[in-house]
């Protein structure tokens, strides 16, 4: 409960700070300290030191797993603010409001990591999404930003409608708002003499709308446009913390999918995984803009995270999901932080970066290596854990082989950027870069490597 309450309060604090001061440095510092307060509040609940005791009638049930995910999300947000807070204040005139909206999104993250039942799932997804529609359109004079925002909004609320229809049909079949693995639903399946059509239709609609939220194929079409059109700082936030939270909600609502709904569901999940991986990786190869390439790569990474859903709630897959969230968020935040400093987002814009700004090029290289899953970086163990989880749950071997082959394809387009930075001549134009920014980038890169060597450094926190 701590994280939900404190993040909502901090959002209000940020809105008021916008009234009292227009000094961007002060606003930035309040937000950064706020995230630390949020992290501390969450850690206090995790270690049973202090937590708000509110009777939610089991609508919200906090577990150590969800709290630990909160820690990762808030930690990643802290790193994001350290690297990019000054760029957030440059997007428009309402600096404080952007931070307020980020805190409201974090409130949604906290609900999605602890919801129990479809009502709170719906509320959490909406609290997560609505501020993002605004953040996407925050560059008000930019037509691309406007267009991305309108597109995201229309498609997002459309998928909300579909999700609600799914929930309503599931309610009609079972008589409660329990999750897919709940006893009410199992009872309804057993009690039904013929196949429960309402239930099947409802679960399919819910699956489709959750796939939309995490941009899994065939519901990924909005992702490239929205990620490309949104201001780059907010694309960084959307494609990391928000996406990981959406994926966690997806996995939590559908955990034990196959044991409850029967093995036929393998067809649907297999189709979602393979098409997401294929579309994400193959289309990314043809992109000339690095920002758009990262949008497609985030679709591809969602395909890997779906393996945690496929793994049917095994221990290793749950750990893998956390590790994936951490590794993917860190790497993407740092590559976007570098991207924002460049004037030209095309691949040629990276030419010769290693000569001009060796620190930026090095940090980008480590992040790209991690994203492609090269050993000694966090991305390797993240991919290994989710795939091992799928195998352990009795997954089909062909699926794993397809995933590994497509990971090899992803190496191609990630390495094109590295090649441009180190082996091509050019004079990239960059915004002014401070020493603190470079130090933070180095720290993130070190963190990625540490997680790649000792993934248990992170995961052991889950158990004591």
């Amino acid at each position: 409960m701590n994280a939900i309450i404190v993040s909502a309060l901090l959002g209000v604090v940020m809105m008021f700070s916008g009234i009292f001061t227009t000094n961007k440095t002060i606003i930035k510092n309040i937000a950064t300290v706020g995230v630390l307060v949020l992290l501390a509040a969450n850690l206090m609940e995790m270690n049973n030191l202090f937590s708000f005791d509110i009777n939610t009638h089991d609508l919200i049930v906090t577990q150590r797993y969800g709290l630990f995910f909160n820690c990762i999300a808030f930690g990643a947000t802290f790193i994001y603010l350290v690297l990019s807070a000054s760029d957030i204040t440059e997007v428009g005139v309402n600096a404080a409001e952007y931070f307020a909206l980020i805190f409201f999104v974090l409130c949604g993250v906290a609900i999605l990591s602890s919801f129990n039942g479809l009502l709170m799932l719906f509320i959490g997804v909406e609290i997560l999404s609505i501020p993002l529609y605004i953040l996407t359109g925050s560059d008000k004079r930019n037509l691309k930003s406007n267009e991305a925002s309108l597109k995201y909004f229309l498609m997002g609320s459309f998928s909300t409608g579909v999700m609600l229809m799914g929930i309503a049909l599931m309610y009609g079949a079972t008589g409660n708002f329990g999750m897919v693995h709940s006893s009410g639903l199992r009872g309804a399946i057993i009690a039904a003499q013929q196949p429960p059509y309402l239930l099947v239709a409802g679960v399919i609609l819910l699956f489709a709308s959750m796939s939309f939220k995490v941009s899994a194929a065939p519901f990924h079409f909005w992702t490239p446009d929205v990620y490309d059109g949104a201001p780059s700082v907010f694309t960084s936030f959307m494609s990391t913390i928000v996406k990981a939270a959406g994926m966690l909600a997806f996995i939590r609502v559908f955990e034990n999918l196959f044991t409850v709904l029967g093995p036929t569901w393998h067809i649907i999940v297999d189709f979602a995984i393979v098409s997401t991986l294929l579309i994400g990786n193959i289309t990314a190869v043809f992109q000339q803009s690095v920002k758009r390439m990262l949008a497609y790569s985030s679709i591809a990474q969602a395909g890997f995270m779906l393996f945690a859903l496929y793994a049917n709630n095994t221990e290793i897959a749950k750990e893998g999901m956390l590790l994936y969230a951490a590794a993917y968020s860190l790497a993407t935040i740092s590559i976007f932080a570098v991207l924002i400093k460049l004037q030209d987002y095309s691949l040629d814009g990276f030419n010769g970066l290693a000569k001009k700004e060796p620190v930026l090029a090095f940090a980008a290289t480590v992040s790209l290596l991690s994203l492609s899953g090269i050993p000694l970086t966090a991305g390797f163990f993240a991919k290994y854990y989710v795939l091992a989880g799928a195998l352990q749950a009795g997954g089909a071997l062909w699926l794993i082989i397809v995933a590994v082959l497509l990971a090899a394809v992803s190496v191609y387009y990630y390495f094109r950027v590295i090649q441009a930075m180190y082996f091509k001549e050019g004079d990239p134009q960059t915004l002014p870069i401070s020493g603190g920014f470079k130090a933070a980038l180095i720290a993130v890169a070190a963190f990625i490597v540490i997680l790649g060597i000792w993934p248990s450094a992170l995961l052991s926190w889950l158990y004591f």
Partner: protein
Amino acid sequence: MPIQYYIYLCLALFSIGIVGVLTRRNAIIVFMCIELMLNAVNLLLVAFSKVHNTAALAGDKTSMIGIEAQLFVFFIMVVAAAEVSVGLAIIVMMYRNVHSVDINFLNRLKN
């Protein structure tokens, strides 16, 4: 009245909404169709609530089963209102820049 009629009505409304979203080109009409989808869901939830409540009343005269669906309807209304405020703001922002709310304008990001 049997529950089937309600289900057919709600699915019909919902489908009209979906067809509207997919075929209309005016952002505000698309938005209205989305609202129609949400309201179809509201109607369905209330109908199901009554069904489950009637079934439970047969066993227990003071049963409150089914109340949570009506609660859900209120949440949907509140969230829909929040979406309206954000959505209309976005459409107005769009209108200020291009003087049109036609979503065929949305093709700058394609290339």
